[in-house]
């Protein structure tokens, strides 16, 4: 398994564990640095510390059909 596949696996696991949260993950340690109900909430928690080594994500709301 290469690094990218490991990253996707960790993101998917985190989405499953926290299905309602937006999260910021450290791309090296795969640790969740902040989580909250929305992108704005995690941005606030990180107080501008999003960096070249973080990834923001959130599981799509399963109650609503996603039709982007």
């Amino acid at each position: 398994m290469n690094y990218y596949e490991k990253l996707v696996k960790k993101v998917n696991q985190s989405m499953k564990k926290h299905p309602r949260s937006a999260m910021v993950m450290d791309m090296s340690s795969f640790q969740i640095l902040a989580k909250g109900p929305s992108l704005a909430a995690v941005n606030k928690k990180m107080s501008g510390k999003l960096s070249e080594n973080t990834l923001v994500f959130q599981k799509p709301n399963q109650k609503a059909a996603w039709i982007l």
Partner: protein
Amino acid sequence: MELIYPGIGGQPIIAVAVKCGLTNKGYYVNMLLDTGAEQTCFPAAFAKEFGHDNAHPAVEIHKNSVQGIFGFSDSYIHSLQISLLDPNKTRERKPVIAWTSPLTRAPFVEKLDCVHGLIGMDVMRCWKSFGFEPNKHGVKIRIVI
């Protein structure tokens, strides 16, 4: 060159590298490969994350310039560059860029409510081919550049 990505969250979403045109700082961000989108774009809330300010007087605002399931929406135009990561060569703290889009500006859409950007046909048209291969884990994305 062929790039194969597992889709994030079982969707055709990949992690890409985005460089802010103002600060030259780089970020990772998830983006949905959206063949129904004419333009590559981001939710307006992402601007702050990239170091942009939608409220700055110099920012170009396009009124009702974007249309989607939300109706019409304003968008804020910011400078940035989007690059595809090489999924085989990228390592921890060492992103390897496989391809960089010629796009230098993108709209940040007020009413777009999601935590990822959209890669639209303006970018995908630059690739030789791309495809989605469903599997039991979700979807595999194949891009030929």
